[in-house]
């Protein structure tokens, strides 16, 4: 069983000795059904760290913010940042390392294993609680979550409130870490891409209707982009709002900055935005589910990225986030790549 206590000693030591700048971890959530990200700077605050099935966030996005901050400083503090990661989150770190966005020495990775379960789907849990505020949620030994509220303990089978992506989990313990708590119990998912089976089984017209209904909801708030650790580009190709202007950007370049896609949330433009994002995440998305969680309109964004993850695996034998030395999906090819679609 992964316990935060296993990591607290190390965390305190790292902060005491000044080996890390701060530690990004999970703290008790204000609403009880979802943990909060916390930033621990002092060794005495380490006790605020928790680990339980409500730790749904992928904290690696904060590594992107950290790099941006360092980029602006004249004399940046080059010490690493400590971070608590689950198995899926650790794969995000692998991709960031693969793309040389961060160095290995920029992170001190404290891993936790989800062992046989995973994290909760906070929306399902909230529904289950129906307003009650839990004081604690833990994993029992009979494949159940034990929820403690003011009214006592309730047991809920894991399958009822487990996050859907955990059913397709490819790495239930961190694949890269400096210290890890919990067992390396490998759990091979029955259906590694089961969540999209239903969508794939629809006819093209039905699929179109499904996506049109969903993507028409999009208000282009870009929450999905803001929360994704792989969307670290300074300027998004579909959105020139923050055109990166350098000292040598000419007036002509500025005036010529074509917005090939409008920023308005119309159907056609929304489709392009989401398709470009999906394509750019092909071979990079590790299914942390944050985009879907952050979306204020409940658009099932996981289904889009999952499809390309499946294609990458089945067509090209490409698995994301396990091997730092592997080239990017689109910067390698095999002679056996399918070409049945080419005339």
């Amino acid at each position: 069983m992964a316990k935060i206590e296993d990591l607290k000693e190390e965390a305190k030591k790292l902060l005491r000795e000044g080996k890390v700048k701060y530690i990004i971890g999970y703290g008790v959530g204000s609403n009880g059904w979802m943990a909060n990200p916390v930033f621990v700077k002092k060794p005495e605050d380490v006790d605020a760290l928790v680990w339980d099935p409500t730790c749904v966030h992928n904290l690696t996005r904060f590594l992107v913010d950290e790099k941006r901050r360092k980029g602006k400083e004249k004399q940046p503090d080059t010490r690493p940042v400590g971070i608590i990661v689950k198995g899926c989150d650790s794969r995000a770190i692998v991709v960031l390392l693969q793309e040389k966005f961060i160095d290995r020495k920029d992170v001190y990775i404290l891993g936790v294993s989800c062992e046989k379960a995973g994290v909760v789907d906070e929306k399902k849990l909230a529904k289950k609680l129906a307003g009650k505020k839990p004081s604690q949620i833990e994993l029992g030994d009979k494949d159940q979550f034990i929820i403690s509220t003011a009214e006592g303990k309730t047991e809920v089978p894991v399958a009822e409130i487990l996050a859907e992506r955990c059913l397709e989990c490819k790495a239930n313990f961190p694949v890269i870490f400096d210290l890890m708590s919990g067992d390396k119990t490998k759990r091979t998912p029955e259906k590694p891409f089961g969540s999209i089976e239903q969508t794939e089984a629809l006819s093209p017209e039905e699929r179109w209707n499904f996506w049109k209904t969903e993507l028409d909801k999009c208000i282009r708030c870009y929450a999905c982009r803001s929360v994704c650790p792989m969307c670290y580009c300074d300027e998004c190709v579909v959105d020139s709002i923050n055109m990166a202007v350098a000292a040598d950007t000419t007036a002509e370049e500025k005036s010529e900055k074509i917005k090939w896609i409008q920023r308005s949330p119309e159907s056609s433009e929304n489709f392009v935005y989401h398709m470009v994002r999906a394509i750019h995440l092909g071979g990079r998305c590790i299914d942390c589910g944050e985009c879907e969680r952050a979306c204020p309109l409940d658009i099932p964004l996981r289904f889009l990225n999952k499809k390309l993850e499946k294609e990458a695996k089945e067509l090209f034998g490409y698995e994301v986030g396990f091997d730092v030395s592997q080239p990017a999906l689109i910067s390698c090819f095999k002679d056996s790549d399918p070409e049945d679609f080419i005339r």
Partner: protein
Amino acid sequence: MAEEFEPRIVAFLCKWCSSAGSDLAGVSRMEYPANVVPIQVMCSGSISPLYIFSAFNRGADGVLVSGCHPGDCHYIKGNFYARRRLKMVKQLLEYVGLEPERFRMSWVSAAEGTKYTQIIKDFVKELKPLGPQTKLRRTT
């Protein structure tokens, strides 16, 4: 009499093979429908997924990408990357429900004027019954 629907197709042709093959079709005075407007690029490897999306966004009824046969790329291996990248694009477009016939890729060498002609004819023929592409087209 209702005007017959004429699909508008954008074709990305690599300079060294497919565009040359298209030129050969011209030199040989072959005949094919005028629905395709070609854009010459240096290599099929330079076709970004953004171009495909942009074409459909601007109202293309069909998009064709044509390059050198594998192993013959003038720039050695650009077409291999195109093959992988554009397969992903194709899978994604079909997944969101776009008719699979609308995005097409082909290998046309500089000697294959006949093949190019046939590809265009087939493409136009297969697109006509589908009608105009309205799903991804910008309306404003």
